């Protein structure tokens, strides 16, 4: 690799509002902020708008019925409208590496410097306001064999189908506790794949507990109708949907061959000894989600721990302001709640930003926010119930993380090795100090795929809560960046 410092100095670019994430929250915020006369740039790492929820097919593909069904219709309408926002700049295939406060920023001037990596080098941006709407990702679950090719995040399987129109396997097993895995099983079948089983760790009565809430059932009838039709289609396709069962081991040397399944009792205890082995070449893991709050933590905005709603999630006020003036948060960054919530939060954040920039009167903002806040309250009741019925419990994951399972896949550290290190070093009781001790979290994924497991292992070993263990410190760059690109930056 050639390093030529100073050969190409990127010019500084400016925006009033820089939105990170072009998913439902980011698109809704961009549309609303644009409507309020704010100069907006939206940055996203993917090649197209839409976020993970609407992973678009490549522009060169033509599809007659992409993502059919009511689940996607509202966000798809927003996606179509967002293409018409002529003054909004969309910076795609671009990764935000860091957000830095500008020292002694005068009123009306940029308060933040944002370093963005692209295929063509590094860009240096300045913005008065930043909205972090980074979405979430599937909770990585650690168990023996989880790094064998063929084991995937269920959302990753879904993205191949949604976007690339590829069925990434012949015979699938989905294992987890989140109802989303039924949706994904259905999409696999529709795309021509075979689903050997969908396994839920919790009991059927717990998974269906929402149905026993008449008010919720009434208010969210559409969702239940969709779920019922999916279950009917899965039954017709002969897909077994089983409860109180979990995949405890993935088997195969070079490629997944089968999964070992064990029973789980009502207390979430995994019964010893695998009861069954199911042959498959692709396993999708679908328990829960983690918020992508790395940048929120990097700027030192307050986060709270909520295991069921995304781990470390950003705190905010009723205008979606984070604890740092000028930084706003929306969507799954504030707690996993789905695309409907994300879109409303995005709009509300745009109002908050316009208010703070002096482009909107408080009375007018309050007026517009009324119905948004009402929607958010209603949606939050559903999201909370959904997260309760779909979270197995912390002890469930502790049992999966047996000593032979790899905790940190990048540094190839096993849970047994980490536990031994903790035993030998009784003073270690935080995730960050465990990282320094063991190298867990120092690899290319920067701890995204081990921090939950490391936190659980430390918490369990020391008898602490996750918030006492604290997450890994989040530093610049938020994703790996080449030295060559870094040297293009001034100052």
């Amino acid at each position, binding site marked *: 690799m050639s390093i030529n410092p100073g050969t190409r100095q990127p010019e500084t670019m400016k925006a009033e509002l820089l939105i990170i994430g072009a998913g439902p929250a980011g698109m809704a915020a961009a549309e609303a902020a644009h409507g309020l006369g704010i100069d907006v740039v939206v940055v996203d790492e993917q090649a197209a708008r839409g976020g993970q929820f609407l992973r678009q097919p490549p522009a060169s593909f033509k599809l007659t019925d992409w993502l059919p069904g009511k689940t996607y219709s509202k966000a798809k309408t927003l996606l179509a409208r967002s293409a018409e926002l002529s003054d909004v700049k969309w910076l795609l295939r671009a990764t935000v590496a860091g957000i830095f406060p500008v020292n002694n920023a005068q009123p009306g001037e940029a308060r933040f410097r944002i370093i963005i990596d692209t295929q063509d080098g590094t860009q240096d941006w300045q913005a008065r306001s930043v909205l972090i709407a980074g979405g979430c990702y599937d909770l990585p679950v650690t168990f023996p064999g989880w790094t064998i090719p063929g084991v995937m995040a269920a959302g990753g399987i879904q993205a191949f189908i949604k976007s690339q129109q590829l069925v990434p396997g012949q015979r699938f097993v989905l294992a987890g506790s989140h109802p989303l895995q039924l949706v994904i099983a259905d999409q696999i079948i529709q795309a021509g794949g075979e689903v050997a089983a969908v396994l839920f760790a919790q009991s059927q009565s717990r998974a269906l507990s929402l149905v026993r809430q008449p008010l919720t059932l009434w208010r969210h009838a559409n969702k239940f109708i969709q779920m019922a039709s999916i279950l009917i289609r899965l039954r017709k396709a002969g897909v077994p949907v089983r409860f109180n069962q979990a995949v405890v081991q993935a088997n195969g040397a070079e490629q997944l061959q089968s999964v070992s399944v064990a029973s789980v009792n009502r207390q979430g205890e995994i019964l010893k000894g695998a009861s069954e082995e199911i042959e498959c070449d692709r396993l999708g893991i679908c328990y829960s989600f983690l918020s992508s709050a790395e940048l929120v933590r990097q700027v030192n905005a307050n986060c709270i721990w909520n295991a069921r709603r995304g781990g470390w999630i950003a705190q905010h006020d009723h205008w979606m302001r984070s604890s740092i003036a000028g930084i706003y948060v929306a969507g799954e960054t504030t707690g996993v709640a789905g695309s409907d919530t994300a879109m409303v939060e995005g709009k509300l954040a745009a109002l908050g930003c316009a208010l703070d920039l002096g482009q909107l009167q408080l009375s007018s903002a309050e007026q517009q926010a009324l119905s948004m806040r009402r929607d958010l309250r209603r949606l939050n009741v559903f999201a909370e119930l959904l997260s309760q019925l779909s979270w197995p419990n912390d002890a469930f994951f502790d049992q999966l993380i047996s000593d032979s399972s790899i905790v940190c896949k990048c540094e190839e550290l096993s849970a047994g090795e980490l536990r031994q290190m903790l035993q030998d070093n009784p003073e270690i009781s935080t995730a960050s100090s465990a990282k320094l001790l063991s190298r867990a979290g120092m690899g290319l994924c920067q701890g995204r795929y081990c921090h939950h497991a490391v936190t659980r292992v430390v918490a369990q070993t020391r008898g602490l809560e996750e918030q006492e263990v604290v997450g890994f410190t989040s530093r610049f760059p938020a994703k790996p960046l080449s030295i060559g*690109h870094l040297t293009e930056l001034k100052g």
Partner: protein
Amino acid sequence: MPRDNSTRIQRGEGISLMVDEREVSAYAGETLATVLLAQGITVFNRTLKGRPRGPYCNMGGCFECQVPMAYPGADTFNWVRACMVTADAGMKIVTGATLSAQPGKPTTAELTTATPGGSIAGKRP
């Protein structure tokens, strides 16, 4: 692994690229991960301990799907996330390469300049 062959899908134009020095056909717009999986390739790289790895998150976060790639007409390889890079006609990809810890450490005869995680998207020449 099958592409969804339903008639409601019309793919992009056919392109060809080199995978492990073998010519492979694909469709414009596909990611490198799709190209490889459609060929039945599941081992994308190997760890320092020799363990096989392949796509996990398919959204650019886990770095499990990294492969060395050279842009058309270039002979320098860079490690890229296969799920994040769109296939171009004439690209060269190597699968099963070891994630070498040292920059420049050759992992195959062709791989003389690859650095794991050296760049997010692989800078265009």
